[in-house]
């Protein structure tokens, strides 16, 4: 199927690639169907694009590429909601707030989007307040990555 995207124009996707966030994202609960579109080959960045509304498109990052010690536990309720069978099916992405220059951008480590890559469902999970994983983690703190 063809979808309109925010930055890539019209893109052909397969229906089985669609990721359902039953509760949407916080503050954007009405949009529940998304696809991940790579920004570039081997990039830790991707577009997280709503299938329903072209203007709802984010840049997300694979957080471990930027913060090696990023790790968190998922509660039983979330596991159930994400239909987890194997922990390795889960992938976490952080929403990037892009700024000019890129080094001024921040990653949302407090509320990652956790996706079950097999069941194609996901959820924005709010971690317990924690100084190490803030809402606005400066991307500049990463050492020479994204290259």
């Amino acid at each position, binding site marked *: 199927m063809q979808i309109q995207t*925010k*930055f890539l124009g019209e893109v052909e996707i397969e229906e089985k690639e669609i990721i359902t966030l039953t509760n949407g*994202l*916080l*503050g*954007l609960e009405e949009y529940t169907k998304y696809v991940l579109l790579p*920004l*570039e080959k081997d*990039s830790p*960045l991707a577009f997280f694009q709503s299938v329903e509304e072209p*203007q*709802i*498109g*984010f*840049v997300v990052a694979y957080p471990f590429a930027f913060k090696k010690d990023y790790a968190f536990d998922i*509660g*039983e*309720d979330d596991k159930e909601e994400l239909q987890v069978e194997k922990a390795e099916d889960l992938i976490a992405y952080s*929403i*990037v*707030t*892009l700024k*000019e220059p*890129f080094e001024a951008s921040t990653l*949302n480590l*407090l*509320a990652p989007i956790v996706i079950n890559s097999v069941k194609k469902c996901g959820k*924005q999970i*709010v971690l*317990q*307040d924690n100084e190490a994983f803030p*809402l*606005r983690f400066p991307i500049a703190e990463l050492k020479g990555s*994204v*290259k």
Partner: protein
Amino acid sequence: MLVLSRKLNESIIIGENIEVKVLSIEGDQVKLGIVAPKNIKVHRREVYESIQEQNKAALNIDANLIQKLTKKR
């Protein structure tokens, strides 16, 4: 909304296994202790509100910046 008055060190029980206790009162600040099962999430309201705002802020992307990012390699 149910309204209950509590004094220092008094608590309320919600359901069978959630307890909220008043630990200290200093000026306009009240410190609450919460005992709840692990699967019950407890967050300050502002945390949710700030995440909502951040999600919306992240939508505001300059197309030129995307071009730069993809051209970089």
